């Protein structure tokens, strides 16, 4: 008999008042018995609606059935047929808008905790499996991958398993893309990403850090070096600003800079070499995952007060639901229907050498209300006249989106992009250049880990077909 409890098994977490002061993972993961109990909530629907909600169509009822039978390695095998980063996606997928949004149990209660089960299975496998990946025999072909985010890592892994000699070129000093420089430790432990990278190396993938394609080497030079096909997974790393007065003041960060300083450069440690502003009152502008991560990072670094400033209402927040709930529990204050119009700076009229000159002291905002829906059906926020007010602040973090970096477009002749800077590709991931494929945020603009991973898989398949012709 299935478990008809309308509620999901709760995810055990660190208590909010404890976790607000550390960088350890917030969600602790299901115990075996809880995982089996949750698996029993699945009705094993014949039509499998949940599967259509997953961008890579993980065979959800099938893996959950294995969990129910306590065959956890079997469950892992089912998942790994279509996904290569389950420990990551189980943690960071926006399940409530993907697989879980389609689950029939969600009609009269809460959906099955698909993401939580996926995470459980992946963690179980990582903790118990001893088999080292075997390096397949070479097929003699060389492929280059640009960028080591989820799309690049997935493409490299799939090709390596087929015997390709793959080299990944990464601009930063560490592989992992947003998984290492953006998403914080308390949500995605870096050891998990590290393990994925190590697995790739065991499969024979070579990872060259500190190489910026377009600068150190160009796409055309990669072909001259003997690479027969190239996958571009360079992400959407270019931060947007609001273009309001005061954005250049001391204490204004892009979320990318703030998170990079904390995550990649370890500024959250006690005695780092890389500085970051800690303490004081912090406002994060934006409502997505990036904004939540920046806000919760600021809190953990020791801010006395952290605000999220978002121009729409709670219902429109694009962040994962779980992150919003966690942020609220941790004491982050949401200033909704609010839009910044100016960042205010300190200016000592008497002493131009006062070191505080040019530092953030506040932000002028205006209240918004939701007007008519736009083409996409989202109600557009419009300013309420005369509702301006000032917030007292020391740090402002802009988390209002990113665009694809133009570096590759500017240095690769014939590589076409759309009006948002996204690389134009066919269904199989082929760009306007022969033998050059692309996928992930570099194509779609900022999206999700699972869609980037999916794009890496599609391109790997297309590259394999192209090179085995």
């Amino acid at each position, binding site marked *: 008999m299935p478990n008809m409890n309308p509620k999901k098994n709760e995810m055990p977490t660190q208590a909010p008042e404890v976790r607000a002061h550390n960088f350890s993972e917030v969600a602790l993961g299901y115990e075996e018995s809880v995982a089996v109990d949750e698996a029993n909530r699945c009705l094993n629907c014949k039509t499998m609606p949940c599967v259509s909600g997953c961008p890579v169509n993980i065979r959800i009822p099938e893996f959950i059935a294995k969990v129910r039978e306590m065959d956890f390695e079997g469950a892992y095998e089912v998942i790994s047929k279509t996904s290569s980063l389950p420990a990551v996606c189980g943690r960071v997928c926006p399940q409530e808008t993907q697989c879980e949004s389609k689950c029939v149990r969600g009609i009269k209660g809460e959906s099955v905790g698909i993401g939580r089960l996926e995470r459980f299975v992946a963690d179980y496998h990582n903790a118990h499996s001893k088999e080292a990946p075997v390096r397949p025999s070479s097929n003699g072909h060389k492929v280059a991958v640009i960028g080591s985010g989820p799309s690049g890592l997935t493409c490299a892994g799939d090709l390596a398993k087929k015997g390709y000699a793959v080299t990944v070129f990464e601009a930063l000093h560490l592989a992992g893309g947003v998984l290492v420089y953006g998403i914080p430790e308390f949500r995605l432990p870096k050891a998990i990403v590290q393990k994925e990278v190590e697995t790739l190396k065991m499969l024979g993938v070579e990872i060259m850090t500190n190489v910026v394609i377009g600068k150190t080497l160009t796409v055309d030079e990669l072909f001259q070096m003997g690479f027969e096909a190239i996958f571009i997974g360079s992400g959407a790393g270019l931060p947007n*600003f609001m273009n309001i007065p005061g954005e*250049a003041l001391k204490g204004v960060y892009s979320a990318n*800079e703030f998170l990079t300083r904390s995550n990649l450069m370890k500024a959250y440690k006690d005695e780092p*070499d890389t500085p970051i502003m800690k303490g004081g009152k912090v406002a994060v502008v934006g409502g997505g995952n990036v904004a939540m991560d920046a806000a919760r990072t600021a809190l953990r670094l020791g801010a006395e007060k952290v605000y999220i400033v978002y121009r729409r209402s709670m219902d429109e927040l694009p962040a994962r639901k779980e992150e919003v709930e966690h942020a609220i529990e941790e004491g982050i204050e949401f200033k909704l229907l609010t839009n910044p119009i100016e960042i205010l700076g300190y200016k000592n009229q008497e002493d131009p050498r006062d070191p505080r000159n040019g530092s953030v002291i506040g932000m002028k905002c205006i209240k918004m209300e939701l007007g008519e829906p736009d083409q996409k059906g989202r109600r557009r926020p419009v300013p309420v006249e005369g509702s301006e007010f000032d917030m007292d602040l020391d740090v402002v973090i802009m988390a209002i989106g990113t665009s694809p970096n133009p570096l590759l477009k500017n240095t690769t002749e014939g590589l076409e992009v759309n009006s948002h800077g996204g690389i134009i590709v066919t269904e199989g991931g082929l760009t306007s250049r022969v033998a050059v494929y692309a996928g992930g945020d570099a194509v779609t603009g900022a999206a999700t880990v699972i869609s980037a991973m999916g794009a890496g898989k599609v391109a790997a398949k297309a590259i394999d077909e192209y090179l085995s012709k």
Partner: protein
Amino acid sequence: MYKILAKKSLNPTVTYMEIEAPLVANKAKAGQFIILRVDEEGERIPLTIAGVNKETGAVKIIFQIVGATTEKLNHKEAGECIQDFVGPLGTPTHIQGLKKVCVVGGGVGCAIALPVAEALHAQGTEVTSIIGFRNKDLLILEDEFKACSDRLVVMTDDGSYARHGNVTVPLKEMLDAGETFDMIITIGPLIMMKFVTLTAKPFGTPVTVSMNPIMIDGTGMCGGCRLSLLQEGKRVTKFACVDGPDFNGYEVDFDEAMARGRTYFDFERKAHEKACNLFKGV
């Protein structure tokens, strides 16, 4: 890991190094820079490429010891390795077509200016170099500048060597005397570049300045290196690591850049003290 092939002290606070990085050496052009990390826990800092040797794959850097990271780097010896070294980053200095140029360098900015002066000289441009230092002990690269300049003026703030005064003094004299340049290229402290720009303004000589804001990734990802340009009355945000480091001096908001440059002043002072104490201990 990247091997240090050679090391030489130019003065008590300025060091020259050659780092083995053939891919960077192959591509580097005057005006471009690298980003390095000394060790696993290290900060990423940008340094200009002061020259290359394509045969040995060496990239030359010249750095002033100002804080924790440059202090740590200075404690590495030839034969040892540093953790990370990436480049060449940034846009090369535009020097094509220039017939007569004045290069104005200040302090360690002279290290950044030298490869530009050399590249100009190599393409047949008539080069006037004005290099300034606070005092005689801080003088660097005089012979190197002599070798690539048609005319060289050396200045010290306190008069302890060569001419007494700021770099703007001889520049103004030349311009007042009716001399013309296709371009003034100036590299040094922000305040110096600001005054060089102001000196040139009445004469309408184009000025290129080299902006060195705090950087992290160097690829356009973090926005930390942003600065404001005033173009046709409009404020435009640019990222120095990809759009620069060279900019039109008349457009740069120097005051804003100076304020931003002091963001981590206290932190850096403490980190430097810590690094110094660390090395004193051993």
